[in-house]
Structure formats: structure tokens, C-alpha cells
């Protein structure tokens, strides 16, 4: 506790770094995966290459990925951009399949009804397909959120600062309180972001509760 009170400002700064390094790749992964998942669900030929291709990304171990990504995009390994790009790739690996399943779960008759009423393709996507894909999409998003928050800590090994820095630093200098603080806060961040996603889902999908009761 003593260690924590003395290092509060450092821990605070690392917490903010950690949040940024989690939220940005999660948001980017959603932006990339939703259209890819939609394509995989609607075009049978696109399905296998998309799902296999993105799924394989997850097989790349994270440490080498950080090291490969950096020269590819021309930034230093320890740059936050490296972490963001690498974690976005992992997010996409998990989320494309979930998004494909989500769009696949939208009932055909409902899409037919939407067409029959005169939704143009764009209107159908925003007003019908995306909301109805919401519940399934949300459950894969929750996995991505928790996994990303946890993977951010690996970045500390290559020098990108996050709550993971508290492990690497604490380990090298033998400060148990530092390791413990990093661990607990990482779990708290994961829980908190997960809770926000669940709550946002409830607000965005009021029909789910109305029907359940």
C-alpha cells in the first residue's frame, strides 16, 4: 500500500496508457471486422478465405508479431502505433468470425421483409442487419475486449508503457507491490470495459429485454 501511495501518479499515467492502447485497437478491430464479417456472411465465396485468413492471424505469437509489425509500418518497436496495429490484428482475428456468425443469424424473412418495404442496401444494413446482428456481435466483442486488455501488457516487454510495465519493472527490481498492482488493475480494467460494453448493448438493444420479460 505504501508503495502504491508513493507511486500513484506513475500508476495513474500507466493506467491511462493502458486504456488508450486497449480502446483504440478494439475500436479499429470493430471497424475492420464488421464489414469483413458482413461480406463473409453474404457472399459464400468470400467466406472461407476471409475466415481462414483472419483466423490464422491469431496463431502468430504476440511478441514476434510486435517485432514484425514495427519494421513493416516503419515505426520503432516500442511505439504505441506498433502495439495498436498488432492488437488490432488480433482483434480482427477474433471478431471477423463472430461478425460473420452475427450477420448469418439475421433471419432471412426479416431481410426479405426489409427489401419488400423498400430499404435500399445501405438502409437495410444500418436499420435492420446491424441491429439484429447486435446480440451475437456483442458476445464476440466481449471476448475481444478482455483479450485485448490482457495482451496490452505483453507490449511492456518491448518497452511500450502500460500496466504491464508494472510487471516488468517490478520483476526486475523485485518490487512485489508493483507486480500485484499491475495484475489487479489489468483485471479491473478488463472487467470495467466489459461492463461498459454490456451496458451499451442494453441501451442500444432495448427490444432484447422487453422480449425476455
Amino acid at each position: 500500500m505504501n508503495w502504491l501511495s508513493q507511486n500513484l501518479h506513475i500508476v495513474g499515467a500507466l493506467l491511462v496508457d493502458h486504456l488508450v492502447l486497449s480502446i483504440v485497437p478494439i475500436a479499429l478491430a470493430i471497424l475492420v471486422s464488421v464489414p469483413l464479417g458482413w461480406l463473409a456472411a453474404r457472399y459464400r465465396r468470400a467466406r472461407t478465405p476471409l475466415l481462414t485468413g483472419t483466423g490464422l492471424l491469431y496463431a502468430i505469437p504476440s511478441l514476434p508479431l510486435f517485432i514484425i509489425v514495427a519494421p513493416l509500418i516503419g515505426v520503432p518497436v516500442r511505439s504505441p502505433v506498433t502495439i495498436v496495429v498488432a492488437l488490432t490484428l488480433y482483434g480482427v482475428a477474433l471478431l471477423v468470425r463472430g461478425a460473420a456468425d452475427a450477420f448469418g443469424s439475421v433471419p432471412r424473412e426479416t431481410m426479405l421483409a426489409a427489401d419488400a418495404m423498400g430499404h435500399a442496401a445501405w438502409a437495410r444494413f444500418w436499420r435492420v442487419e446491424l441491429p439484429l446482428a447486435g446480440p451475437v456481435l456483442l458476445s464476440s466483442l466481449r471476448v475481444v475486449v478482455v483479450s485485448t486488455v490482457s495482451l496490452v501488457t505483453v507490449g511492456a516487454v518491448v518497452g511500450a508503457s502500460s500496466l504491464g510495465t508494472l510487471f516488468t519493472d517490478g520483476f526486475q527490481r523485485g518490487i512485489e507491490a508493483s507486480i500485484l498492482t499491475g495484475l489487479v488493475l489489468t483485471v479491473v480494467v478488463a472487467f470495467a470495459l466489459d461492463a461498459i460494453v454490456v451496458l451499451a448493448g442494453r441501451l442500444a438493444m432495448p427490444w432484447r429485454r422487453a422480449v425476455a420479460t
Partner: protein
Amino acid sequence: MIEFASVRKEYPGGSVAVEDFSLTIPSHAVAVLVGSSGCGKTTLLRMVNRMVDPSSGTVSIDGVDVRSMDPVKLRRSIGYVLQAGGLLPHRTIADNVATVPVLEGRSRRQARKDALGLLERVGLDTALADRYPAQLSGGQQQRVGVARALAADPNILLMDEPFGAVDPIVRDQLQTEMRSLQAELGKTIVFVTHDIDEAFALGDEVLVLRKGAEIAQRGTPAEILANPADEFVASFVGAGSARRTLRIREVGGRSVVVDGDDRPTGVLAR
């Protein structure tokens, strides 16, 4: 007026849904396409709003080939009712009814207000406006489906087995109400069903279809009942069955109508 001129629909792979179909449906009339599943009746219906384009032949509305129209605009100008209403499960009843006016750019507020009037018109309590489709009974959902189809005040209504998913009592009720609604509104309606009784209950003109959407017989319900064109039509309408062969028996000075099994079905009006 809706006109089908020698339309044919062949799917890639060679299966033919519609062989060669021609028909003119006059304005304000109810034409019922009746036939077993897979006879091509739904395909014909979907040609009217371009959900399906014919492989050859043309469909025109008031003399204009539908292929020259933008499909999205065309669909918004035509009411479409599907089985179980085809309601959007994530939208409230009022929002479902307001769908087309909102797509057309009407303010959501005004469209929802109009929706309440439409709900009353189809016999629904406006207290249901903020519920979701899954919270309504099958019959109620069906009424919402009709209200939604009427929302943009279309001249044409396409109805694809709209009452197929509700129980017989509710179906009778919905059919009766649809007749009185139609007497008031005078839309041009194309109605698809596999239920011959429903066809006779609603159609000004009934078309009995065989596979490939070949017209086995076309006429008023009375004409078809009186003179079925062939064996196929006779068996489809149940001509000769006990329920269709009625006789009159005098009972206590009144003429009672009995069916082929001698079961009374009604009394002749004096």
C-alpha cells in the same frame, strides 16, 4: 391495373418457377392466386414489386413496365404483407408501421402519430404502440403487418399468405375485417394463398394455379364452384365433397341447407 404479359421465370440451374403467365388485374379488384406450394404463385407476386425479375415477358402497372422503375421507390409505393407480418423484431409496433413513411423522409414523430391512426383502423389498441412484435399474438402481429402495408397509402397491396400462421378462428376474423377494409379503401390487391376457402372468401377473381404457374382455371368463386374446369380444379376446390354439395330440407316451414352428410349448415334467408 396490373398486367402480366407472357412472363417466365427460370432460375440458373434450369428449374422453371413460371412457364408462361399472362393476366390483367383491373384496378380496385382483389385477385387471389391459389395453388399448392411450389406452384410459382409467390414468384408471380414478387414480380410486381421487382423482388424477382422475370426471365422474359413484362409486368406493368397502369401501363408502365416495372423494369423501367427504380426498385426501391417501386417497393415503397406498394404495400407488402407477409406471413407473420414480416415485422422487424427490433422495432416497436409504432415504428414498424412508420417504416416506409420514415424511409420516405417523413419525420419520425409525424409518422408515429399517423401509425396510431392506422393501428386503430386495423382494430388494434393504440396501447400496443410501444410494444415489440414478440410481445403480440400472431393475429395482432398480422394486423400490424396490414397497418404497415397501408402506411404509405399505396394503390396496390401484395399479400403473401398473410393469414397462414394464425389459428382458424382468428383467420376468419381477419378475413372478414379485410373485406370490410377493402370495401372502404378499394385497393388493387394480389393475394397469394394455398387455402381455397380463403381464396373464395376474399377474391373477386380467383386463379387456380398448377405447377409452373399454369392457370388451371380463372373465374369468380361462384363460377369455379359451379363448373370446375377439370379434374385438378375439382379436387382442389373439393367439388363433390360433402362440404360442397348442399341440399335444402324443409324443417318447420323454413328451408334448412344441409351438406352431403346431412349436417345442417344454415337457413335460407326469407
